[in-house]
């Protein structure tokens, strides 16, 4: 499995050094998280006192988290995030997998053209297109609706690319067998290819959900209405409203927003790495 697997263990000093370095970098990386959680359970008086300790003298977590959940419609923001991410993901899978299949397994005139279109899409940073996409949403009269949050992401060139790479590793014979078994091309996509590309599907899902759950740029442009805001935008509004006066509830809200992704990642870590290995690095 491992690249450094060897008969001999690392020598003791090397092992100690490894752990020392990794614990240090790990601690640095975790510092903002720790600080965030620490502030989220402190009362304002302790936050603004010039001294530091991780654990508060007076545990104020309940108050802060309650405030975060009631002061602003945080549950609503998170609900919006879940809804938007889920719809985007489903649509992306629906649109991308047949295209990826076609690119990976069929020969037809125009395939190279189609693939170069996908590669171009892969190259383009999406935010650059925000201006025309904004105008387009206006023309479609969907600004300030869920549709505006979703429609620019209906297709993911990255998804097409990732699935195509993965589909290419599936032997042609499986497709042939499916045709002989009487499956239509569409049925081959859904019933054979997609289930076989499960690691890619999971990796892509994580990428997609992380990307759209965390996106601030487009929602900032596309929605005005607080009841439509996804978590990052909501957090920003909350921050503005608090005007830095009360870090406790703000940090509580941040913690709540960050938490679902971290939990999801920890749960899916194994597949994620596998999917990345299979698809991205090839």
């Amino acid at each position, binding site marked *: 499995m491992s690249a450094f697997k060897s008969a001999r263990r690392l020598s003791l000093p090397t092992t100690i050094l490894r752990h020392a370095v990794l614990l240090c970098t790990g601690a640095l990386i975790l510092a903002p998280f720790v600080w965030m959680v620490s*502030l989220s359970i402190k009362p304002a008086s302790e936050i603004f006192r010039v001294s530091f300790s991780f654990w508060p003298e007076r545990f104020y977590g309940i108050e802060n988290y309650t405030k975060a959940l009631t002061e602003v419609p945080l549950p609503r923001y998170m609900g919006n995030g879940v809804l938007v991410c889920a719809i985007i993901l489903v649509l992306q899978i629906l649109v991308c997998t047949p295209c990826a299949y076609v690119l990976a397994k069929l020969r037809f005139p125009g395939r190279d053209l189609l693939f170069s279109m996908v590669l171009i899409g892969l190259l383009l940073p999406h935010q650059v297109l925000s201006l025309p996409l904004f105008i387009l949403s206006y023309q479609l009269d969907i600004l300030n609706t869920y549709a505006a949050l979703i429609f620019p992401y209906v297709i993911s060139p990255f998804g097409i690319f990732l699935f195509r790479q993965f589909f290419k590793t599936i032997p042609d014979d499986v497709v042939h067998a499916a045709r002989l078994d009487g499956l239509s091309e569409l049925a081959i996509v859904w019933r054979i290819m997609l289930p076989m590309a499960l690691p890619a599907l999971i990796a892509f899902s994580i990428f997609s959900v992380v990307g759209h759950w965390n996106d601030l740029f487009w929602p900032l442009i596309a929605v005005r209405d607080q009841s439509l805001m996804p978590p990052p935008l909501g957090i920003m509004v909350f921050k503005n409203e608090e005007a830095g006066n009360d870090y406790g509830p703000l940090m509580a809200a941040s913690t709540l927003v960050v938490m679902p992704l971290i939990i999801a990642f920890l749960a899916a870590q194994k597949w994620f790495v596998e999917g990345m290995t299979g698809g991205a690095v090839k």
Partner: protein
Amino acid sequence: MSEPLCLSGVRVEHSAIGGARRAQIPATPPARAPAVAQTLVAWGLAGPAVFFLLVLFLLPVTGVFVIALSDWQFGARSLSFVGFANFREVFVDAGFRASLLNSVVYVLIVVPGSVILGLMIAVLIESGRSLRSFYRAIHFLPFMATLAAMAIAWEALLHPTIGFVNQALAVIGLPTANWLRDENTALPVLAIIGIWQNLGYAMVLFLAGLKSIPQDLYDAADVDGADLWLDRLCIVTLPMLGPVSMFVVIVVAVRAFEPFDAVKVLTQGGPGHASEMLLYTLYRESFEYLRTGFGAAVAVVFLAIVVTLTLVQARIMGNRVHYQ
């Protein structure tokens, strides 16, 4: 788009045959030649993707160019072309120039920082057996976390009075600073946040690369006498990671050109233009100052940079990455 319709047409035809007779050869073969049918099916399946690629990528790109070359404003019903006036304006604008320069500096800090640290951590994690997934998860967390929320945590951490950083520095007697409000530190601090966020991504990609190095190579190196950790690193690990590294550099570089959340939440481009960067300029000019033409021109410049960067790097990688 007619592909989806055509697709369903094909399906209906098949199920009709399926209903009539099963496992039997129909007396008359279908009229369409198989090759044509396959083409139709292919485009039918790709139809929705083609439609959205056109509408959501190619059309907007054209749109950006049209707006950049015209004097169009929000709400305007007509436009006239003004040539490169918008671009001229962009390039004399001090804010934009600062923004471009800052972006370049930011990329030059973040890319090497993330890639080298990511590589180092990946190699360290993989070189031992214990706590592997623990370390991997920790270092990857920032990539997953909502940056808008984490930026607030960073702000608290860097707060000049109540922030942990200054408090810690003060305790060990080092000079403190108002990190986000000082022209000299704002951009480096954002870059550090950028590294903090991207290093995990680089690390995971490197881990994937490390896993694909065959164990045999290490054994061979061992037998060949390269049995010190450093020798193995130089003879096997690093060279074998070559192709992956190029991929990582591209991915991180493209991401490093697009920092927005931290800028928006933490500095709004300030102090001065000290932390103004391309995407934020694009946003501010387009959606805050409502200078549509200016914003579009910035977008075009931005686009040109990112696309050139990617193409150049893809060329450097040459035949090592096979997309076909």
